[in-house]
């Protein structure tokens, strides 16, 4: 178990609020310290970020990409002390194992490289130069894209690295940003910001990362009133609470909690292929310890393959167990242990009631697989816990998911190659926005349409200059 303290803030030069530091224990022996920002501190912070925006607005986007890309490479460099520090801090703050921290950092930082960011901008804008100045776009117009002067982003802290991705998006659009990460994702945004400040003076002016306990302390009008856009990742409660606090004219980009679904087609359940299928599914479930919005939490497994769903679930349980050895789950909080005990005891009782339910579980509270012939939608918010439900045809999934329209997003699928588009079309009717493989499910591309939105949607504006015809 790591011991120590992590200072979860990186503020622009000129903010003098560090006399007061609060602290929260994230696990035994490790605490996260964060500044106590009063109204006048917040006022100064926002003023500095707004004043500092001119610096990044004048920086060519290629230079921004270059600076970010350099930091990304540092996170990928096995000899770089920044990478070591990131891994060390991620374990206690995100509650993941060191193996998982490495997996996450490798997966995330690969998407922050200069090459990937250039590709992202090229995919989203006809020409990334549109972010540097007016570009002729047709015979009657020139056009420029500009980000808001001040972007406030509130992270959820469930998946480490998501905060950095949000921060990069704001910087690519030349917005100043205040990022308040969730407690589980403090390490990477803070270290990223720290490293970026070393790359250029510009980032010392337009970039702030600060954790604080959002339950005890509101963001406050001093910040909310000045934000051009507010980006929120989190529960409906958090989103609603922030929506109610911001001025009606301020744009809100919200990413709510989602239910991840997996579909296993009968083609993937051949005697030869069932184990490989189970391994892919187990990896998809276990990545991020299943905390991502993209992580499958309920599986629908098609009948009619060589291996019946009720038998395949045992193969899946073995794969979960094997994976636990290679990629162990993180230390659980007291509340999470209670949650796993509740789940397992409840399912055990249900099993004893002769409902056809089967319970498979790992040692301690590491993983839980539940085979449940009752097709009503159920999922657990415990880590690495999945409900497996047998269905006659994958097309039925749409009907079974109908009541969850507002919280669906990613559906991972294996088998059913020739039926994939028909199934996807049916899932679109219930709000699904991404159908992918189990392998890719945890690792969406940088240009993925999160909740069906394009990457920069809501974060920038376009200005058209029309040719003057008198």
């Amino acid at each position, binding site marked *: 178990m790591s011991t120590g303290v992590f200072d979860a803030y990186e503020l622009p030069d000129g903010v003098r609020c560090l006399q007061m530091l609060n602290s*929260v*224990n*994230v*696990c035994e022996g490790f605490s*996260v310290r964060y500044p106590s920002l009063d109204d006048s501190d917040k006022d100064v912070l926002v003023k500095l970020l707004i004043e500092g925006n001119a610096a990044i607005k004048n920086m060519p986007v290629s230079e921004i990409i270059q600076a970010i890309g350099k930091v990304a490479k540092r996170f990928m460099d096995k000899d770089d002390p920044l990478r070591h520090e990131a891994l060390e801090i991620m374990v206690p703050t995100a509650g993941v194992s060191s193996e998982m921290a490495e997996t996450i950092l490798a997966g995330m930082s690969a998407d922050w490289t200069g090459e990937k960011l250039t590709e992202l901008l090229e995919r989203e804008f006809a020409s990334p130069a549109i972010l540097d100045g007016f570009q002729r776009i047709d015979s009657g117009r020139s056009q420029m894209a500009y980000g808001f002067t001040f972007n406030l982003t509130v992270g959820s*802290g*469930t998946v480490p690295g998501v905060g950095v991705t949000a921060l990069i998006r704001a910087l690519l659009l030349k917005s100043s940003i205040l990022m308040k990460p*969730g*407690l*589980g994702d403090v390490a990477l945004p803070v270290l990223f910001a720290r490293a970026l400040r070393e790359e250029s003076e510009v980032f010392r002016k337009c970039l702030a990362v600060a954790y604080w306990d*959002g*339950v*005890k302390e*509101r963001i406050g009008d001093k910040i909310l009133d000045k934000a051009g856009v507010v980006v929120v990742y989190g*529960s*409906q*409660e*958090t989103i*609603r*609470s922030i929506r109610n606090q911001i001025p009606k004219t301020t744009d809100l980009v919200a990413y709510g*909690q989602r*239910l991840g679904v997996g579909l296993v087609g009968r083609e993937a359940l051949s005697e030869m292929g069932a184990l490989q299928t189970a391994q892919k599914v187990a990896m998809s479930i276990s990545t991020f310890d299943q*905390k991502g919005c993209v992580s499958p939490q309920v599986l629908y497994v098609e009948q009619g393959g060589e291996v019946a769903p009720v038998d395949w679930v045992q193969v899946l349980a073995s794969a979960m167990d094997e994976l636990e050895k290679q990629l162990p789950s993180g230390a659980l*909080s*007291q*509340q*999470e*242990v*209670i*949650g796993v*005990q*509740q*789940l397992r*005891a*409840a*399912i*055990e*009782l*249900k099993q*004893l*009631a*002769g*409902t056809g339910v089967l319970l498979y579980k790992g040692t301690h509270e590491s993983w839980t697989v539940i085979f449940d012939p009752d097709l*009503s*939608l*159920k*999922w*657990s*918010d415990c880590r690495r816990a999945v409900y497996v439900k047998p269905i006659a045809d994958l097309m039925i999934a749409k009907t079974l998911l109908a*009541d*969850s329209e507002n*919280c669906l997003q990613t559906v991972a699928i294996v088998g059913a190659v020739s039926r994939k588009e028909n199934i996807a079309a049916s899932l679109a009717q219930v709000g699904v926005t991404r159908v992918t493989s189990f392998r890719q499910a945890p690792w969406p591309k940088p240009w993925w349409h999160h909740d069906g939105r394009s990457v920069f949607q809501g974060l920038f504006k376009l200005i058209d200059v029309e040719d003057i015809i008198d």
Partner: protein
Amino acid sequence: MEINLRKKKEGKARFFKREFASLKMSDFTNMATELVDAFEEPITGPWDDDVFSRFAVKIFGYQYRSNPSYAKYAKKRGVTPSNIQDWKEIPPVPTLAFKEFPIISGELGAVETVFKTSGTSRGSHQGKHHILDLSLYRASIVGSMKHHFYSEQRPALLALVQNPIASPFSSLSFMLGEALHTLSMGRGGFYVDKDNRIQYEKLVSRLRKLESSKESVLFAGTAFAFVHWADWLEEKGLCFQLPKGSTIIETGGFKGRSRVISRLDLYETLASLHHIPVSSIVSEYGMTEMLSQFYEKTSRVPQTGEVKHLGYQPPPWLRSLVLDVNTLAPLPAGKEGVLCHFDLANLGSAMAILTEDVGVAFDGEGIRLVGRLDGSEERGCSLAMDDFYSNQR
């Protein structure tokens, strides 16, 4: 058969032998009657351990015989009616089980009503508590509330929840409906409409009438309903001078959930807006899965002005154990662990309930809720703010 509430001079072994020889599933009605009689006795303090244990063990025997899956569950844990010695050995049913399938000790066809949890916190599904005999719930509500709020007076009851007709699956609405009908003799009412909106003007008018007639009030509602109420009063610049003897009952709503206002701040605000001492605000802790409730008083430390919560007190027919989170072994007083409640009123479902709540037991009676530890942010779909505003149970 009658069990005196005070210690009975009878050997344990003889007692068990006699009890289980005659136990049948059809004993439900007799046992329910016996429990109702016991709940109706004026509360003078906790029952002796032997008395509680006799009831609890007898109920365990009944639930073992009338709920086959629970019997297998208990047997797997090595506990059967023939070897049980003490109520603390009774295997608890997790609250999550109520979300998975019906927990019924008796006949499904005999279910009188079903109470549902608001239920989006763990999976999309609602928890359901099937009630075989509402008279047990009624007796538990009345016995407890009479002791805490009606011993010296008969206040009017104003409820900041929907009425039981608009919200038939809410155990909280039922509870306050029962208190209004039986204890306040119909004086009072419900002030949240079917669309979950507080009926502010009606409530103000009713409170003003009670203010002028100097009739004491029992004003009960969820914590978040009170947050909305307090916000509205502050916005309108209104406040009240509730008559002497009035009490506010806050019926949970903070437990383990993220919030933007502390319980103490809410209490201070409510005390000031209604011109009552903070010590006249009582917190209730209950859950859909349990037919009895705890109540917690508050006091202000004279020297420091600090507000202290005095611990949740159970009625005599409800006991708790604090269990080690990892091993589920009982912990001594003062140690923090997961709460397990043994509610005799749950005759028709599961008497022993393993909760997700973390707490500490006091040396004597009562528990303190601790809630979530630092750093354990809520995962999964959370209840929306406005869901607090509606009935939680």
